[in-house]
Each structure stands twice: as structure tokens, then as C-alpha cells.
């Protein structure tokens, strides 16, 4: 056991190899960086040197070319110096004067001293040399050839470097052919040779080096046959000029490369066989090649220095890195060792603890190899399964599993392998065949690289049984709780510091809670969230819940929860301090019914007592069992004197009480009524019918009272007739009033008949009158007009101006009278004419009327606006007349304005039924003082010569409006326009 369970340990450490690898990696990187830096430096220095060589060469070439140009310039001056040439020509012909010879000497001296020409040779045109006094004759065969060429080409020639064979002098010659020029022709005189000593200037120019250098030099060469010839003396070879040659096969030498035609940078060995870097360039217009060179050693001197520096720094860096990493590794290793030591100590302690735990554990612990064969088991396992240890170690996980659960084993193992460990339940079997439910905690573990399954098993038989019992009980109670009809809520009360309940939280509630209260998903919520404001509306509820939560004494109460507007019957108890359970039922309906019943009773009572009628109820036997106070008043008895008696008994009682009675005279009638009362009761008891009749009661003072009586059965819940009831109204006054009305009505009808006859007569008379007016009043007027016209037509020659004027007055008055009659008739017709009712489109009428009224003449002077007008109901032609008169007036009375503004509209008051139409103008208006005269017949507020008219128009309008049940009025101010308003009763139907 110790062997297996204590070997769970991890071994690991750092090898120094990794360390070396890191150091090498760092070193290589540093070396690479160093090399990269060095090679970059070399490249830079080389490029620098090359560009130096190139630029110095180019400078030299420029200087040489300029020098050559200057020399040719000297020659050109001589070539053009005709005086000198004349002198020379004369000298050649031996004709020269002394002065001329002096001139030549003077020029020669100047040339020699000032320039680098050391000798001048003269040849005539026959190539014969003329010697200057004292001059020796030399061999000038080279020069002669060039002179011939120069004369032929008539051009100056600049010779290459030449050497005087015997004298060993190096020179360059400038050959100048000379000509004498006059107006007619040019004649050759001969040629001059100016000899230049390169030692004097040219060699210095070539050889000088502008910077400080030990080995740099420039040199000129030219190709000559199969070798190159050095043209100047060299830095390291004094006698090289035109003397030193190198054959063309020595290609490593830059001069040879130049001779072969190469131009540019070249690395090779020089004439000393020393390694050099050189720049080669041809000089245009010459056979010369310029070479600038420097020794490699001189170039590599700074490079070597750089290499040394870089190498040194690299080595130092590599060393530093190596030392640093080593130190880091060392300290890490030390720390790890310390940790390992501590872990080892801890592990030892744990192992001990673990072994103890395993052996004395209450759980079964098994260990199996990867084939699920049991390789180890603890004491508890041996006890529980009933196998000996040897037997158990020969079993596998398959054997201890109950046969019906074995199929699942492989899937369990797979899950454990995937997750590393898992807990599940299964059924195991003991040696004696007894099965038990087991909770398995299976883990994969690795012991010294091998895979094992560690199985911790617990017999959960008891737990299962207990759980099952609990579940059953829980189910039972939950069902009860959920299904009971009462609402249930389990809550925690929240108190403030003074132990006053502030709020409570619903911890649980059943279905009925939701059904009864309509509150959903209350669990976990505060009541203040569920029913906001309940704390303020229902402090009583909080008080009771708070009290029970604190005291633990249950309470049962009924309460109206204002916030919900519901009545509750609540039993509340506290299972734990500050917690409470409320079991409740909603009793709103019952409570409401109670209240309604009480209200109904009160209403009924008040009704019965206050109604101006006497009410009674009789039982089956016909005895009074209830009477109201009015009934008692009527009988002048107290209630208890009446109750329990039949009407007959009551009558006898009354009679006895009256002692002798006052009703002797009318006793028959009275008796009859009383007998009727008993008969009615019996009839109702038998048939259940309702009886309604009028009863007559003679009064002690001799008058008679009339009662309207209704009698009906009293029916029990079972539908049985259990008595009768009745109500008696005193209708004596009504009876009297009715009689009076009947009498008055008959009188009234007579009167109306008479009136109608009068009215009809009057109407007929009026019609006859109108007809007569219409017909007869006009005839005389026509005669007046007609004959006055005839008078004017036929007798104008006999009438003077005044006579004619008077005739015209007759005519105009006749016409006016005619108009008056027409208007008056129209007015009277309105009164008599029947009104036909139809709906009227006011907008259409107004527009039509306006179109009729305007003429082209006044059209542009009127600004006419119509607001939308509601339609109306009335007589179409009459309404047209109203609008015609009103709009006509508006046009007429605003005609004096430069622009007439007329507006027609409608105002709506209260509702659509009350509509006021109006016509507004900006005319002369009128004084409101005379407003009452506006609508009178023949009433005019303006003089005739101001505005025409008979004064009937508005009277007609008013009459029409009145006939339509409406009203008309006007508002105005003098000179500020007028507004006429009218309304009509739209829905009035008049036959």
C-alpha cells in the first residue's frame, strides 16, 4: 500500500545544455552583428577612396586640357601677328633691317622668359632652317615632318611628348605655320616650332596630389605598339618618363589595363608590384591616359583599425552575456533546490496523512490497473464485499458490479478517462449476492508512468431510502400546498430599528395566491415592488403581520386591502421569528354582498317609511304582519294595535275604540271596502294574481278620499304563496285636478274652433285684399304713367319746360308707387305663403345670388369672400330671397367705397344645430340708435337721393327668418360698415 500511494511525484530539473545553447545563440548574434558592422565600414571607406580617386583624376584631366588650350592660344596669337611674321619673312629673305631683327629677338626673349618655351626654331617655306645668331644646327627630322603636315593642312599642330635622341631632353612641340596676308593673297612664309619643357610646369601639374597621402600618385601613359609607355617621371621611379615601358601581357597592372582601353576603378598591382587601387581615364583629344592610384595598404589602414575595434567590442559583449546568464542560472538553481526541499518535506507529511486516511476511511477504496483488475483494496473494502483480500485482488471491476449495470461500465470508464475523474451512481454486488446502490468516485492516476484507476466507493443504501422517503413526503406536501384553494404566502418581514414593520419579502407562494390576488411571480420580491404604495394605504396589514412575526402568536382576521381593493380573510402564523406564513381567502364578493344587503335594507326601509302611501303585508291567514307608519297614521292607531289582526278584526277594534262611531251614514260603503279587503286576500292566496283598483274611503268630515291600490302575493323562495301585500296611494287630489283639466280642455277646444274660423276668414280677406291691390292699384298707376308719356310725346310742342318737368315728376312717382306696391305684395306674400322644407346648400345659393347681383360695371370694385357655410334646412326660394336682399344691401351701401369688401360666413355656437350666418360689408353702416327701425316696413335710415329703395327688403328678410323660427339682428357703426346676422331653426318642420 505504501509503495503505491506514496510514489505520486514529479521529477524535473534544468540541464546546463540549455544554458550553453543560450550563450552560443547570444554570441553568434553578437558576432554576426560585429561582422555586419565591419563589412559595412569597409564598403563605406572603399567607396570614399574610390570617389576621391575619381574626382582627383577628373580634376587633373581638366587642368591638363586647360593647359593645352592655353598653349594653343599662345600659338594662335603668333599665327595672327602679321608684323612679327613680316619681320620673320624679311629675315628669311635676308632683307630684314636691324630693327626687324631686334623685334624678333625681343619677342623671342619674352616668349622664353614668360612662358615655358625653352627654344624656338624657324623654317622657311622651303623647309630650310634659319638659325638665330649663335644657334647650333640640330637634327630636326621629327619636326620637319610635322611642319610639312602643318603647312599642308594650314593648321597648328601640338606634338606628343618627344625626346631629343642625343641630348635626352623631353619636350613637346607646337608647330605654327605662318602666312603673310595682303589684300590680294595669302602666301606661306614657313613655320615656327615652339618647344615646351614639361619639367617646367606640366610634370608638376600631373604629379601633384591635393591631399596628404603617402602612396597616392597620378601618371600619364600612352600605348606604344605592344606595350605602354610612361610619359612622366613616377613617384617611385625617377627616370621613367618616356623611358619605362611595360608589355601589354602584364594585365594585373593598371597602366596595361589603360592601354587596353579599360576605364574606371581597377584593383591590381603597380609597376613596383605593390597592390593598388586605381582610377583609369582617357584624356579626350590626346593619346594620353590618366591613371590615379593609391596603395591598398593605405586604404586598409583605417579599415584594419575598425576591424580591431569591432572585434574587441564583440568579444567583450560575448563575455558579458556568458557571465550574466551563468549567474542567473546559478541563482535559479539554488532557488529550485530550496523549493524542492520544502516540497519534499510537505510531501512526506501528506503521504503519512494520506495513508492514515486510506486505511481508516469509511469509504471503500480500490485500485485497479488499466485492465480494470483490482490490484489494491483497503480494509473497508474487504469488510464490505465479504471477500478475503486474496479473493478481492483476483477480481476486477466487472465482478463487483451488479450484472444489470455491467453494460454501462465501459461508457463510465470512457467518461472518466476523458475527464480525468467522475462521480456516478451504480449498483454493486457483494460476495453473498446482496446488491447495494453505490456512489462511485473514480479517478485515473499515474503511478511511476503506469495508468491506474482509483475507485472510492460508498454504500448509499440508507441515503437512498431516506431520500426516497423525503421525496415522497415532499411531493405529498407540495401537492397539498399547491392545490389547496386557499392562498398561501411565506414571507420575511423587514423591520426598522424601532421594530416597526417596513416591508416584507415573498419567499414562497402557491398557485392559489396568484389566482386569488392576480399578482404574478412574486417570489423573491418585496411587497413594495409587487404592490407599490401598500405600506401607506394599508398600515393595518403591516401592523398585524409585524405583530405575529415578532410574537409568534397566530391571528385570524378579515381585512380590506385598499391597495388591491379586495377583502381578505387571513390566518397568519410565524414559523420563525421575523418570518410569517399567511393563509388566506378572498372574500370581497361576500363582503360586497353584505354591504349591498345592508344598503338595500336601508334603502327599502327609507322607501317604505317615506313613500306617500300606506303599505301593509298580511300572512296566510290574512292578519297584518307589517304596516308602515303612513298606514298607522291613516288608521290613527299604533303599529302594535294593528299587527296580528285581520281587516275585519281591526275594523271592529276601531269601532269599539270610537265608541259609537262616526261613520254611521256611510257605514255601508266602508263595510264594503273592508269586505273587499278580505276577499282580495283570499283571491290572491288562491290564484297568486295581482289586483289593481281604486278604492273609495268616506271620511269623518263627509268628504271622500280616493285610493289607488295595488295588491300582490308574497312568494317564498320555494315558490309558495305565503301571504299578500298591498300599497295604497291617496289620489284624491289628482282625481280632482283631472276633473278640472277635462273641463278646461273642453272649453279650450271650443275657443280654438272659433278662432280658427276667424283666422280663416281673415286670411281669405287678406288674400282678396292682396289680389285686389296687385291688380287694381297698379292699373291707375299705369294710366298715370302712360298718359303722362303720351302727353310728353304728343303735346310736347304745347308744353313749356316746366310743364314737361311736371309730367316727368308724375311719371317717376307713378313708377315709385308701382315699386312700392310690388314690394308690399312680396312682403305680404311671405306671410301667407306655405314653407316647403328641404336641405339647402347655402354656399351654392350665396354664389348664385352674388353672380345675379353683380354687373360687369361694379364687378372689379367688389372684393367678395365666402367662408364655408354649413348646409341648412328650410324654404329654398325664401332663403334665396334672404341672401339676395342682404348681399344686395351690402353691395348697395358699400358702393360709395373705392373698394367694397363683403364677407359672408357662418359662426357655430354650442353645437352644429346653432349656426349663425352673417353678411359683413365696409359700407356706410348706420347708427345703432336706430337699429330697432331697420326691419320695419317702409323704414329707411338713409335718404332716397343717397340710396334707392322702398324700405321693404329687410322687412321681408325678417319675416322669412321669423317664419323659419330664427332671428335676425345687425351690428354697425356709422361709416364703419355693417354686419347682419341671422340664424334659422334648421330642423323645424312646419306644415
Amino acid at each position, binding site marked *: 500500500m505504501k509503495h503505491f500511494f506514496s510514489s505520486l511525484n514529479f521529477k524535473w530539473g534544468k540541464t546546463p545544455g540549455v544554458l550553453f545553447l543560450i550563450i552560443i545563440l547570444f554570441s553568434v548574434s553578437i558576432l554576426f552583428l560585429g561582422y555586419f558592422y565591419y563589412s559595412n565600414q569597409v564598403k563605406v571607406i572603399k567607396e570614399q577612396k574610390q570617389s576621391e580617386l575619381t574626382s582627383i583624376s577628373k580634376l587633373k584631366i581638366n587642368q591638363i586640357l586647360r593647359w593645352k588650350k592655353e598653349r594653343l592660344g599662345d600659338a594662335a596669337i603668333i599665327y595672327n601677328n602679321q608684323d612679327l611674321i613680316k619681320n620673320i619673312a624679311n629675315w628669311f629673305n635676308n632683307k630684314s633691317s636691324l630693327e626687324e631683327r631686334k623685334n624678333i629677338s625681343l619677342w623671342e626673349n619674352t616668349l622664353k622668359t614668360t612662358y615655358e618655351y625653352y627654344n624656338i626654331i624657324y623654317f622657311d617655306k622651303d623647309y630650310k632652317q634659319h638659325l638665330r645668331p649663335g644657334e647650333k644646327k640640330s637634327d630636326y627630322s621629327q619636326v620637319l615632318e610635322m611642319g610639312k603636315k602643318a603647312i599642308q593642312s594650314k593648321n597648328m599642330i601640338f606634338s606628343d611628348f618627344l625626346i631629343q635622341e642625343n641630348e635626352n631632353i623631353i619636350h613637346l612641340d607646337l608647330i605654327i605655320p605662318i602666312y603673310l596676308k595682303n589684300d590680294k593673297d595669302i602666301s606661306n612664309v614657313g613655320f615656327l616650332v615652339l618647344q615646351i619643357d614639361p619639367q617646367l610646369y606640366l610634370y608638376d601639374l600631373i604629379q601633384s596630389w591635393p591631399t596628404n597621402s603617402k602612396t597616392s600618385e597620378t601618371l600619364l601613359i600612352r600605348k606604344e605598339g605592344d606595350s605602354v609607355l610612361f610619359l612622366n617621371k613616377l613617384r617611385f621611379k625617377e627616370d621613367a618618363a618616356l623611358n619605362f615601358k611595360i608589355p601589354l601581357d602584364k594585365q594585373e597592372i593598371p597602366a596595361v589595363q589603360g592601354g587596353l582601353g579599360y576605364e574606371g576603378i581597377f584593383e591590381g598591382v603597380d609597376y613596383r608590384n605593390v597592390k593598388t587601387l586605381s582610377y583609369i581615364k582617357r584624356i579626350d583629344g590626346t593619346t594620353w591616359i590618366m591613371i590615379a592610384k593609391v596603395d591598398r595598404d593605405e586604404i586598409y589602414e583605417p579599415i584594419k583599425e575598425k576591424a580591431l575595434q569591432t572585434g574587441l567590442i564583440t568579444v567583450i559583449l560575448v563575455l558579458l552575456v556568458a557571465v550574466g546568464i551563468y549567474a542567473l542560472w546559478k541563482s535559479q538553481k539554488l532557488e529550485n533546490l530550496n523549493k524542492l526541499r520544502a516540497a519534499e518535506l510537505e510531501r512526506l507529511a501528506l503521504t503519512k496523512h494520506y495513508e492514515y486516511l486510506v486505511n481508516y476511511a469509511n469509504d471503500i477504496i480500490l485500485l485497479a490497473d488499466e485492465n480494470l483488475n483490482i490490484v489494491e483494496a483497503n480494509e473497508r473494502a474487504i469488510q464490505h464485499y465479504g471477500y478475503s483480500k486474496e479473493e478481492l485482488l483476483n477480481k476486477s471491476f466487472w465482478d463487483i458490479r451488479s450484472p444489470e449495470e455491467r453494460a454501462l461500465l465501459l461508457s463510465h470508464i470512457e467518461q472518466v478517462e476523458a475527464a480525468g475523474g467522475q462521480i456516478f451512481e451504480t449498483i454493486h454486488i457483494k460476495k453473498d449476492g446482496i446488491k447495494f446502490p453505490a456512489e462511485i468516485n473514480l479517478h485515473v492516476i499515474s503511478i511511476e508512468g503506469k495508468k491506474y484507476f482509483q475507485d472510492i466507493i460508498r454504500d448509499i443504501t440508507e441515503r437512498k431510502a431516506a431520500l426516497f422517503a423525503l421525496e415522497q413526503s415532499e411531493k405529498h406536501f407540495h401537492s397539498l400546498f399547491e392545490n389547496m384553494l386557499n392562498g398561501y404566502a411565506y414571507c420575511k418581514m423587514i423591520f426598522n430599528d424601532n421594530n416597526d414593520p417596513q416591508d416584507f419579502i415573498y419567499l414562497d407562494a402557491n398557485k392559489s395566491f396568484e389566482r386569488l390576488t392576480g399578482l404574478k411571480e412574486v417570489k423573491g420580491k418585496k411587497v413594495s415592488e409587487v404592490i407599490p404604495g401598500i405600506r401607506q394605504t394599508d398600515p393595518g396589514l403591516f401592523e398585524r403581520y409585524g405583530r405575529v412575526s415578532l410574537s409568534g402568536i397566530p391571528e385570524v382576521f378579515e381585512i380590506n386591502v385598499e391597495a388591491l381593493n379586495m377583502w381578505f380573510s387571513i390566518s397568519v402564523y410565524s414559523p420563525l421569528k421575523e418570518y410569517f406564513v399567511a393563509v388566506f381567502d378572498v372574500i370581497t364578493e361576500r363582503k360586497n354582498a353584505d354591504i349591498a344587503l345592508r344598503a338595500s335594507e336601508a334603502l327599502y326601509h327609507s322607501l317604505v317609511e317615506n313613500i306617500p302611501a300606506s303599505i301593509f303585508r298580511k300572512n296566510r291567514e290574512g292578519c297584518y304582519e307589517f304596516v308602515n307608519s303612513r298606514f298607522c297614521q291613516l288608521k290613527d292607531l299604533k303599529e302594535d294595535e294593528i299587527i296580528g289582526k285581520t281587516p275585519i278584526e281591526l275594523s271592529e277594534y276601531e269601532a269599539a275604540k270610537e265608541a259609537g262611531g262616526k261613520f254611521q251614514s256611510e257605514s255601508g260603503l266602508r263595510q264594503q271596502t273592508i269586505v273587499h279587503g278580505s276577499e282580495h286576500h283570499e283571491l290572491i292566496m288562491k290564484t297568486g294574481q295581482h289586483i289593481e283598483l281604486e278604492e273609495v274611503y268616506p271620511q269623518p268630515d263627509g268628504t271622500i278620499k280616493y285610493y289607488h291600490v295595488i295588491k300582490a302575493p308574497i312568494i317564498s323562495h320555494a315558490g309558495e304563496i305565503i301571504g299578500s301585500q298591498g300599497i295604497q296611494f291617496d289620489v284624491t287630489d289628482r282625481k280632482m285636478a283631472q276633473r278640472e283639466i277635462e273641463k278646461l280642455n273642453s272649453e279650450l277646444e271650443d275657443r280654438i274652433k272659433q278662432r280658427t274660423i276667424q283666422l280663416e276668414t281673415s286670411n281669405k280677406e287678406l288674400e282678396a285684399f*292682396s*289680389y285686389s291691390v*296687385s*291688380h*287694381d292699384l*297698379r*292699373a*291707375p*298707376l*299705369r*294710366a298715370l*304713367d*302712360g*298718359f303722362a*308719356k*303720351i302727353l310728353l310725346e304728343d303735346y310736347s310742342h304745347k308744353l313749356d319746360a316746366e310743364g314737361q318737368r311736371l309730367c316727368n315728376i308724375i*311719371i317717376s312717382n*307713378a*313708377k315709385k*308707387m*308701382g315699386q312700392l306696391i*310690388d314690394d308690399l*305684395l312680396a312682403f305680404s*306674400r311671405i306671410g301667407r305663403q306655405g314653407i316647403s322644407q328641404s336641405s339647402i346648400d347655402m354656399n351654392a345659393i350665396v354664389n348664385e345670388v352674388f353672380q345675379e347681383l353683380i354687373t360687369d360695371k361694379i364687378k372689379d370694385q367688389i372684393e367678395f369672400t365666402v367662408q364655408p357655410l354649413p348646409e341648412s334646412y328650410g324654404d329654398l326660394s325664401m332663403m334665396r330671397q334672404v341672401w339676395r336682399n342682404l348681399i344686395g344691401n351690402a353691395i348697395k351701401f358699400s358702393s360709395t367705397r373705392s373698394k367694397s369688401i363683403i364677407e359672408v360666413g357662418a359662426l357655430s355656437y354650442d353645437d352644429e344645430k346653432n349656426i349663425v350666418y352673417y353678411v359683413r360689408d365696409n359700407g356706410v353702416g348706420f347708427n345703432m340708435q336706430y337699429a330697432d327701425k331697420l326691419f320695419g316696413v317702409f323704414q329707411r335710415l338713409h335718404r332716397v337721393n343717397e340710396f334707392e329703395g322702398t324700405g321693404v327688403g329687410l322687412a321681408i328678410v325678417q319675416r322669412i327668418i321669423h317664419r323659419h323660427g330664427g332671428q335676425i339682428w345687425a351690428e354697425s357703426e356709422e361709416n364703419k360698415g355693417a354686419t347682419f346676422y341671422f340664424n334659422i331653426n334648421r330642423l323645424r318642420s312646419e306644415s
Partner: protein
Amino acid sequence: MNTEELNIVDILLIEDNPNDVELTLRALKKVNILNKIHVLSDGAEALDFFFRKGKYSNRNSKNEPKVIILDLKLPKVNGLEILRNLKGDENLKTIPVVVLTSSREEQDVVESYKLGVNSYIVKPVDFEKFIEAVKELGFYWLLLNQPPK
């Protein structure tokens, strides 16, 4: 007035007011309608004329007037009654009847048209207009209208 004259009546004017008669005649004359005009001044006489009674018993029924100008308000028998009689008679109803009256009462107009009047003219007070109305009446009924043969 002899029977001869009565037989060649073109226009029969039935009008009781002598002023109106004079004005009407003058109007006709003024517009150059010079046809033979006969004037009757009461309703009863008019009926005698049409139905050849009394002094008109000898009138030749073949020469009926071309147009009748009728006032409504007449002594004894009023215009509407005359109109009813005329339009109720098979022989007379083709004679055009023009009502020329002072009345502009709607009941008169409606009644006249119901009875079959050919034209209804309200006498204007203005003489000029009166002449105009008579002129149009004469032109239309005498010159333009084509009576059935």
C-alpha cells in the same frame, strides 16, 4: 258694330279698363300692327262673342280671331273662367290666348298655364316697357306663329 266687321277680327282684346285699352291700342299702333282689333270690356260679353249668343248670335264662326289678348280681372265673368271655356271647346282651343294682366300673383300664373294659356304677360307700370311687351306679343302671335289650319 255690324256683323261684317266682326267677321274680320284679327286681334280680340278683352279688357275692362278703358285706360288700359287705350294704352294697348296705342302700343300696337306704335309698333305698326294695324290689324283689325276688336275690344270687349266684360267677361259675359266675351263668352257671348265666342259662343255666338245675344248680340253675337250672327257672328260667322269661320273667321275666329288670330289671337286673343285677355285680362284676368273682368266684370261678371273673370279671365280664368273665359280661358277655361275657350280651352275646353274643340273649335276654340286652337286660338292662341295671351293673358295680359296687372297680376303677378303666382296662383294666377299657375292657374292660367294649367288651363292652357299660350302666353302670360304682366302689364308693367312703365309705359315704355308696356309698349315693348305689346310689341313682342303682336309680332310673335300675328307674324311668326303658324296656327293649325
